[in-house]
């Protein structure tokens, strides 16, 4: 099997699809990397659940203002034109359909668009944060993820086995091997690594991959 994309490369690929003028929420952790790879010339406004629109990069070490943080509690800066608001307004932006794109991580994604990304089951402290809100309302809900688990099990499955974050909510999945849309409760393959056959990709995918139009080569630079 061919090599897989790194997380940075998955983030790079997702960033190529950020629409100009979009309002975007990037989930804590891996999805946050997407901001680094936004294509030149596109204006994207980032939303963070704790009440900022249009925040920018992290400040230099030592210049943090801890009243100016993102949802991951990391220090951020403001872009010209930024706005503050309280939590109810922040989630009105989320649930009310005002965000163009929300990007999250995943434990499992089902072919019907169900997402499991908040709980690995009993025995730990459950924590959901804003994920259950973010999966509803954004016009597009993207997932960035490795194609398989650390144990090599498919993360793209017919039905999620872990506790759900939301039902039928995912619209597009960027993995270490492919780009896949969720259309009418089916996985539709859009890009795959050029060195990989459809059979090889299907073998590590837990639900049927459908072909609907061209499948592009997933060519990503070293980043």
């Amino acid at each position, binding site marked *: 099997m061919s090599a897989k994309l790194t997380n940075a490369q998955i983030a790079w690929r997702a960033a190529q699809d950020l629409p100009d003028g979009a309002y975007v929420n990037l989930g804590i952790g891996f999805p946050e990397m997407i901001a680094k790879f936004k294509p030149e010339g596109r204006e994207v406004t980032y939303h963070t659940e704790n009440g900022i629109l249009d925040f920018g990069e992290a400040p230099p070490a030592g210049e943090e203002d801890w009243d100016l*943080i993102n949802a991951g509690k990391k220090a951020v800066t403001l872009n010209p034109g930024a706005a503050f608001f*309280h*939590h109810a307004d*922040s*989630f009105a932006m989320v649930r009310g359909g005002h965000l163009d794109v929300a990007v999250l991580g995943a434990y499992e994604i089902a072919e019907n668009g169900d997402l499991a990304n908040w709980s690995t089951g009993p025995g730990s402290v459950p924590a959901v*944060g804003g994920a259950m809100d973010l999966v*509803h309302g954004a016009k597009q809900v993207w997932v960035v993820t490795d194609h398989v688990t650390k144990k090599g099990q498919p993360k793209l499955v017919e039905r999620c086995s872990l*506790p759900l974050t*939301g039902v039928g909510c995912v619209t597009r999945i960027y993995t270490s091997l492919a780009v896949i849309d969720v259309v009418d409760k089916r996985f539709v393959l859009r890009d795959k690594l050029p060195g990989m056959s459809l059979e090889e990709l299907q073998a590590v995918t837990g639900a049927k991959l459908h072909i609907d139009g061209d499948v592009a080569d997933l060519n990503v630079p070293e980043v």
Partner: protein
Amino acid sequence: MNKICPSLEEAVAGISDGMSVMIGGFGGAGAPIELIHALVDRYKKTGSPANITVINNNAGNGAVGIAAMIYAGMVAKMVCSFPRSSDPKAFTDRYLAGEIGLELVPQGTLAERIRAGGAGIPAFYTPSSYGTDVADGKPVAEFDGKHYVMERWLKADVAIIKAETADRKGNLTYRKAARNFSPLMAMAATTTIVQATRIVEPGQIDPEQVITPGIFVNQIVEVPNPAQEEALLREETK
């Protein structure tokens, strides 16, 4: 009308055993550290207030703020969306030992429940959590072909919050993203207690800039140069 209270001790004196307390802040931003510690100090001296239900987005970090309340043993239950942090030991150990309760609420639902509590709306429908374990036992309804979960308002006996500027009438402004849940909590609590970095004369806050109008505020105590939770944590771990 003068809502100014001379000391932190007096500001928190009315908080008693078994009360529900909304605490402003998201992580360290907006956490009213001095009010929280006035409450912890009183508990350590007198054993009261005990059995507190704390409503906040998180469940404490390190050993200051809400974590200090948990370590002191005065918290019976947390209502929050994300009981994890860079150092969640205070809550995690007690939760896994069955010594502290948890009501997990999705963040947007938590905000809206508090807003509804303050706005006199007993329940509302939200798409969040539909089809998940969090919606177990809650009424579901279909509107225009989509499913929604009914959530109830959330009110509290007391809210303790941090503001940047206040006047004696209770008008408030906040600093940057320290605003988060505080304007909602100020509306949803029977008694709202504010620590303000600066108290100014009425009229010195431009009415266009007031974020929380004074009608939602009961007591204000001035705390110049307030401690910042995140800064304290970083000092601790140095």
